[in-house]
C-alpha cells in the first residue's frame, strides 16, 4: 500500500509525454526522414584532398607527374624485389611473401599476374600508391609510382620500354584481360550459377 501512491503519481506524470504521436513515429523510421540531425561538420577542401587518393578507370584522380621504365626498374630492385622476386616472376619451389607480378601475358595463363589478369592499368597506380611497399605504405612519390607502374606494365609486355607514363596515357591503356571480365549474374532462385 505504501508503494501504490508514488507509482500512480509516476504514471500520471509520464502519461502525456510518452503518448505515441504521428510525429514520433516518423522520427523512429530513419529511412523516411529527410530533415537533418545537424550532427557532424562540413569537411574542408584541404581535409578532402589529404585523403582523396583513389583513381578511377577513366583516369579521374591521377596526379600530375610522370615516370619511366628505367627509373622503375631501379625502384623495383630497391623496394619491391625483396618480396616479389628479382623479376617479379613465379619461381617453382620458392614461396615469396609477395604475389607474382610478371608472367605469361596471354589471357588465361597462370599464375594470375598484372599482364594476364588485371583488367585496368589505373588500378596498378592506385594500389601501389596506397599500400606499397608493404613495410612502408604511402612512402612513394607520385613520380616513383608512375615509374614503377611503367616498369611493371613493360615487364608484362603491355607498354614499350620508351614510354613516359603520365596521367594522360596511363588511363588510355587497355589491358588484355579486360575483355574476360563479366559482371556477376547470380540472382538467387533455383538456378546454380
Amino acid at each position, binding site marked *: 500500500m505504501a508503494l501504490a501512491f508514488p507509482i500512480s503519481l509516476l504514471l500520471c506524470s509520464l502519461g502525456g509525454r510518452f503518448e505515441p504521436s504521428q510525429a514520433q513515429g516518423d522520427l523512429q523510421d530513419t529511412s523516411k526522414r*529527410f530533415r537533418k540531425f545537424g550532427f557532424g561538420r562540413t569537411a574542408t577542401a584541404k581535409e*578532402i584532398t589529404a585523403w582523396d587518393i583513389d583513381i578511377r578507370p577513366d583516369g579521374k584522380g591521377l596526379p600530375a607527374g610522370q615516370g619511366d621504365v628505367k627509373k622503375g626498374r631501379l625502384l623495383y630492385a630497391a623496394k619491391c624485389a625483396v618480396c616479389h622476386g628479382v623479376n617479379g616472376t613465379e619461381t617453382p619451389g620458392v614461396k615469396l611473401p609477395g604475389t607474382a607480378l610478371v608472367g605469361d601475358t596471354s589471357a588465361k595463363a597462370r599464375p594470375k599476374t598484372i599482364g594476364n589478369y588485371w583488367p585496368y592499368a589505373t588500378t596498378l597506380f592506385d594500389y601501389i600508391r596506397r*599500400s606499397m611497399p608493404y613495410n612502408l605504405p604511402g612512402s612513394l612519390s607520385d613520380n616513383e609510382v608512375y615509374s614503377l607502374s611503367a616498369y611493371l606494365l613493360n615487364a608484362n609486355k603491355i607498354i614499350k620500354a620508351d614510354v613516359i607514363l603520365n596521367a594522360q596515357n596511363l588511363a588510355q591503356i587497355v589491358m588484355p584481360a579486360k575483355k574476360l571480365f563479366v559482371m556477376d549474374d547470380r540472382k538467387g532462385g533455383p538456378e*546454380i550459377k
Partner: protein
Amino acid sequence: MNRKNNRKGVTGKISRRTLLGGIIAAAVLPVNKLFAGALQADEKLLHDLDDPTKLPGPGPSPLGKRSVFEQPVRKPSDISSRTPLQDLHSAITPADLHFERHHAGVPAIDPAKHELLIHGLVERPMKFSLADLKRFPAVTRTCFIECAGNFRTGKEEMTPQDILGLTSQSEWTGVMLSTLFNEVGIDVKAKWFLAEGSDAAVMTRTIPLAKAWDDAMIVYAQNGEAIRPEQGYPIRLLLPGFEGNMNIKWLRRIELSEEPYMTREETSKYTYPVKDKIRMFSFEMDARSIITHPVYPEKVSKGFIEIRGIGWSGRGKVQKVEVSTDGGKNWQLANLQEPVLSKAHTYFRYLWEWDGNETEILSRVTDETGYLQPTLKQLVEARGPNIGGYHMNPITAWKVKNDGSVWFKPENYTNK
C-alpha cells in the same frame, strides 16, 4: 587426450593466485569459522579440487574469464584466423572468436581522433567523429559475415573450422548508412560509393548505392560492446549478406561516384573464372550449411545422436535445412532454432538414431529465394573445371565409421 586426463592436466595448472584470491575473499567476510578454515588450506587442499564444496572460491572480479576447462581458440595463419564453429552451441560467435582477415595487419586507432569523411557526389561533404556517429538513432542487427574465399578441402582430418571457419556472426549496433546519406544529401547522379579503411592496406571496395538505401550500416558495437580491433575498431561498414571483404573495417572515408573504381580487391582479387570468363562484383554470399556436430575429431556411440549445425544465406532467411544420414539418398527436415533471421547463421538440429553401421551424414539448406545449396559437382558443372576458391558453398559430407570415428569427406575437383 581424453576428457578426464585433460581435466586433471588443467587442474594442476590452476594458479596459486586464483586460489589465494578465494582465500582473501573469504578473509574479508565476517565469518570467523570460514576464515579459519581457509587459512588451514594447506598444500594438500590446493591440489584437492575434486570437491568444490570444501574450499571457498575466488570473489567477484572486474572482468570475467572462461572456465579453465574451456579453451576454444581461433586457428591463425599468416593472413587470417578461423572461428572454431565446432565449439559453439548457438548462432552467435563470441567477439574474441570472430574470424579475422586483414591485408596489412590490425591498426591501432585512437577513437578520439578517428573521423569518417563522406564526400564526392554529395550536397555537403562532411566529417563525423565517433561521438557524432553515436548521436544518430542507433539500430541493432544480427547477421553473419563470411569471407568470399571460405572453402578448404583436401584431407579427412579437417574440422568445420578448417573447412569454412571464415564465417562468424555477431549482434552489431550502429547507424544506418541511409541516415548518414540523408545528412550529407546524395546527388542523383551517384550510383556507387567507395569505402576506404584506415589500415596500412588502405583497403578500398566499391559498393552499389542501392545497398546503402537497403540495409548497410556503420557499426561501432559488436555483441553489446565496442567492436574488437580485429573487426574494425572503432567503426566498420556492415553490408549484411555481402562478401566479407566489402565490409570495410577501420572505415575512414566514403566517396559517392557515378561509376565503380575497379580497386585491386574487386578486380585482381575476389573474382573467379566461370567457364571462359572471369566473374566480378559477386556481392551476395549464396546459401550454405554445415554440420558442426558430430564432426572430426569426435567419436560417437550407437543410439541417439543430435546432429547440429548452421545454415545461412546472404539473400535472406533460411527457409529449411535438410539432413541426410544415408549419404544423400534420403533427406529429412531439421528443426530450425527460432528466431530465424534474414542473412543470419541459423542453428539447426536433427535427432538421429545411429545403428552403428558406417554411413555419411550431410546437410543442405534452401533459402527464401528457393536456392538449394549445391553439390561440388553442380558448382563445377556451372562454372567450369577452372573453378576458383571464391564463392564456394558446396554441401559438406562427414563419414561416420563403424568404430564411431567421424571424418571429413574431401571431394576431388579440378583447380588451377
